[in-house]
């Protein structure tokens, strides 16, 4: 922490840089809606069982509607994970660029 060459002012300058602001806002634009979505999607399962137990117990094909919904949570989790992993490559590039530039400026 303290042994790092970058001091307080430089952290603040960095935080104000347009590249950094773009990085964090892009990340936030993915992470916040995705988090809200998965929590709501997940809680919809127990809540809908509580509100409409009859409907959720109804057979649909070989399984109950509740069971299909539960299985869809697996698909949801894997799809959101894949989407994030793909999107995060862009964040990695932006972060690497900032890191690289900062290291050079400090040394130079």
């Amino acid at each position, binding site marked *: *922490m303290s042994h*790092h060459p*970058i001091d*307080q002012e430089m*952290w*603040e300058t*960095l*935080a104000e840089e347009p590249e*950094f602001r773009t*990085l*964090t806002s892009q*990340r936030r634009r993915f*992470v916040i809606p*995705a*988090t809200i979505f*998965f*929590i709501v999607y*997940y*809680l919809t*399962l*127990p*809540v809908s*069982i*509580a509100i409409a*137990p009859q409907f*959720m*117990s109804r*057979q649909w094909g*070989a*399984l*109950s509607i*509740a*069971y299909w919904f*539960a*299985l869809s*949570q*697996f698909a*949801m*989790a*894997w799809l*959101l*994970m*894949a989407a*994030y*992993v793909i999107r*995060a490559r862009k*964040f*990695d590039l932006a*972060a690497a660029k*900032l*890191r690289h530039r*900062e290291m050079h400026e400090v040394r130079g």
Partner: protein
Amino acid sequence: MHEPSLVMFAVFVAITLIVTVWASGSTTTRKGFYTAHRRIGGIQNGWAITGDYLSAASFLGITGLIAFYGFDGFMYSVGWLVAYLAVLFLVAEPLRNAGKYTMADLISFRLRGRTVRALAGVSTLAITLFYMIAQMVGSGLIVSWLIPQVPEWLAIGVVGMLMVIYVSFGGMLATTWVQIIKAGLLLITAAILTVLVLSRFGFSLTHFLHAASAVPTSTGVTNLLAPGLYFKGTQGAWNMISLGLALVLGTAGLPHILMRFFTVPSAKAARTSVAWAMVLVGVFYLATSFIGLGAATLVGQQHIGQRMYAGQAIGYIAKHSSEAQALNSQLAHNGFIVPILNNNLAAPLLAGELGGSLLSSFVAAVAFAAIIAVVAGLAITASSAFAHDIWFNLVRDGEGDEREHLFIARATAVVVGVLAVVLSIALRSYNVAFLVGLAFAVAASANVPVILLALSWRRFSRGGAIAGMLCGLGVSLAAILTSPIVLGAHAIFPLENPGIVSIPAGFLGAFAGSLIWPDAEAEALFDRLRVRAATGLGAEV
């Protein structure tokens, strides 16, 4: 059936001890001991997270719950997988970039001061000890059930001893490999059982599900594939929602899972490891459906016995008052042990049905290995929290050389091991299942609000962190100790899991504390944490 089981278990122990000897060379520095020099690859770490996470509760507990309650048991599987999205989106990468050895490092990055670090360290120690006792008591039960000649205290002692050996000699590197081996064994077991179950139905999913839906259930109203067998009525619904919240947020605050992100070289590797863990854990949890429903159809619920202890029985009676009479007479007949109701043994019994005694021995040995890998992960977490947070930062104020701190870390592993063994043996005839719920509730209510606000809210202050952790911890403890699990029919707090109350309490405490006690230093350090967490600039290498 127990001799092959012992042989297979001995093979597991032999291999893991060889790994420990090999790894012991890497534990000459703190960085080596706590983080395996941050050289674990992303994919390896994904396997290790899987091994750290899939406890005996997941393997034996969930399959047993599904065998008896069908869909309602599967709800646990869903929650435990979805929980990883919170880990992936919110904590894995920032933690890797901003932390060093422990969760407390991240929190005290901008919330400097002894109280914050002490509280974060104590919460880590409490969570790991609760979790460890629950696991070890479980191991005693399983082993003495599968191999009646081995008394519970011996099984608990063996788990404790092995865990101390892996951790104190082999550090994080040995622990990681024990977890990877265990995850591989567990997934192979789940795959074998799934394929064998399906083979009994001519590999036809329709036939399999049809047979499962024809299994007679306790209520007779609904079948195993529909909800309502475990979580009954309005109370059940609230229980399910509260449990779901605690599972989903709690995982992101479990210190032994968070600790794994310090072992990888970069934030990118941390992300890769969560992605792999989500695939592996998800496949395993899908298989729990086949194993649980397979046990219900092929073994038959009436053959799946379980020993129930007084505390569990009282909790059960409180929930199922119609069966109280029968249960009470069974209690009186058999002392504390009630041989009714499934639970833990569905998986080994199914294995016996499908593959004879050899397969059931294998499954039993894997279950025991699973417990050991989980407690080893917990022990190294407890050891780092004490040695790094309490000893190095608080007692010694950052002084002292590498040798001293390594000695303390190893000694803590031994002390934690002995303490856990003694407590587990002392508590073995009580119901300790609530300790897992308590660990998740404390993680979700005391740790998660503070971690998230430290990373995202400029005005978050030391006072806020202290108030948040105390509120989350206090409300979780109070609610669990007055819940039906502990007090049975006389419960004051109606739900089994406090999440729905204690998580908001943790956040409210953190908000209120920050507004009452503002903190200029924490505000000034916010940018440093933010930049470092997002870019990895200045991250530990």
